[in-house]
């Protein structure tokens, strides 16, 4: 178990280095220039050259990459161009808000999606099933930045129930989290429905029913346990998508998280900050996948984790 975790974490290192390489290379190929953006168009050539040298932008690409990796190994993410603050400080200011939002959305998506999916599968083609499937279709087709705005109009502007945006209390979290969760609720409900329906057709379920096992026990003991493997895979994938969607939700609800920081960094051509933000996202993704892989073993004893 422990060796498995260490090996997976070690395998993540080349992936992260690759991500940094690609991000730095793409930034390097960018037509715009951070230095001119910082100093304005009328800066003297000397001033531009000085600042470039100061930021280390005059060195060749590979040298800068190796410098940055060396910095990372010492736990130094550099300083952001715009604010001249430590990138690590900016990121640690922003990431708790994103984690809070993503976890809240994941919980909503998992609970609502799985419950609705199971109910749909147990009573297929019922009224509930029809409504749930219609809702899933719309959930998958609505752009979340728009859903968020519609929610603001309904619940903040018309009903005055919830705040328009910002953070501070649980009421601030409700709209962004529900908005972010919607497409995942739809995906998970669809997937759960078909996974449970498949399992309910298996021979062992028929056998269990034939020998007189109660319906609840059949569902809990035989069906759900086996249906959970594909659902779990989807949950892992969805948490990655939720982090991506957080960029939009944070923008709509003025939520001070990593996503908004990243968009700001792109607009300001703040390379160092952008690299840091992407790195955190990539790291979070590696960790989530690891958790998903580990929980397979807990659900299904046939999948063991040796070395």
């Amino acid at each position, binding site marked *: 178990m422990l060796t498995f975790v260490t090996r997976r974490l070690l395998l993540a290192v080349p992936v992260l280095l690759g991500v940094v390489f690609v991000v730095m290379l793409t930034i390097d190929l960018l037509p715009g220039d951070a230095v001119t953006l910082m100093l304005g168009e009328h800066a003297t050539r000397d001033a531009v050259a000085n600042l470039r040298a100061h930021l280390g932008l005059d060195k060749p690409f590979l040298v800068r990459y190796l410098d940055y990796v060396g910095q990372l190994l010492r736990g130094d993410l550099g300083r952001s161009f715009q604010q001249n603050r430590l990138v690590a400080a900016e990121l640690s200011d922003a990431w708790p808000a994103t984690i809070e939002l993503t976890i809240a959305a994941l919980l909503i998506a998992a609970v609502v999606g799985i419950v609705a999916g199971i109910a749909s599968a147990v009573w297929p083609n019922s009224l509930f099933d029809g409504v749930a499937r219609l809702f899933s279709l719309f959930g998958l087709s609505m752009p979340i930045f728009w859903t968020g705005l519609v929610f603001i109009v309904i619940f903040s502007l018309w009903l005055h129930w919830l705040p328009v945006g910002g953070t501070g209390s649980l009421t601030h979290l409700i709209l962004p989290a529900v908005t972010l969760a919607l497409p995942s609720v739809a995906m998970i409900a669809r997937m759960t429905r078909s996974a449970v329906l498949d399992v309910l057709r298996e021979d062992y379920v028929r056998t269990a029913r034939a020998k007189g096992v109660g319906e609840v026990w059949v569902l809990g003991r035989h069906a759900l346990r086996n249906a959970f493997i594909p659902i779990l895979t989807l949950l892992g994938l969805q948490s990655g998508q939720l*982090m991506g969607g957080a960029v939009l939700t944070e923008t709509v609800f003025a939520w001070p998280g990593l996503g908004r920081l990243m*968009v700001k960094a792109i607009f300001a051509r703040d390379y160092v900050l952008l690299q840091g933000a992407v790195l955190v996202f990539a790291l979070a993704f590696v960790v989530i996948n690891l958790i998903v892989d580990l929980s397979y073993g807990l659900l299904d004893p046939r999948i063991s984790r040796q070395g």
Partner: protein
Amino acid sequence: MDAWLRFRKNRLALIGLALVLLLVLTATLAPWLALHDPTRQSLIEKRARPGAKYLLGADEFGRDILSRVIYGSRVALLVGVVSVLIALAGGLVLGTAAGFTGGWLDTVVMRVVEILLAFPYLLLALAIVAMLGPGVLNTTLAVGIWGVPAVTRMVRGSVLALRETEYVGAARALGAPAPAVLRRHVLPNVLPGLVVYATLFMANAILLEAALSFLGLGVQPPTASWGLMVSTGRDVLLVAPHVATVPGLAIMVAVLGFNLVGDGLRDALDPRLTTTR
């Protein structure tokens, strides 16, 4: 022909097809359908409520929202279709190469594809747009490139499976050159899956273009893009909610249409999957 009969029986798929046709018609007939010039500003009529002159109201600059939504369908469809072509072309080449030749090429391509697929879609597209800069063309490229890994994996999977079939083995044993085997025996069998994927991809491409434009990193003003319209409407959301919400409805309808057709096509082309419906 079987497939069409199955598709025709699927009510939802037919609704989807109607929505898609509506979108295509709107885009082609835009200059005749739009009552006003989509870029003509009229500051006295800014944020006009929906009424007789402006059926869906006017935006922050007094531009007719309905006309802008109509013209916006062109951007959505154009970005969608071209990015689908990019994704299909890239994915077909990489997927066939990886699947048919195997070996180290397969390993390298699939490793990169796995990493890219694992990355949240919006972040990948954001990174590409951050590299290329905003604009219609670059947005299309970003959306298209984002689609390549998924197509690659799909094509490679089918090619690998087909490579082992008896008729491909027979064709090769008879001395048919690799390109001919690919064209006559492999690709026709990959096609149905690709059609389904392309339709569902259209839905996601429209969503992604809208998202990028909403963030200000996609299509730039004054071009009428639905995502951009939602974004400008957001600034006046509390005073004039219709400016942001109406264009979003257009996005939803278009995406819903392609999703329904895609689902319908999947069920029609691969009846084995229909069992759960």
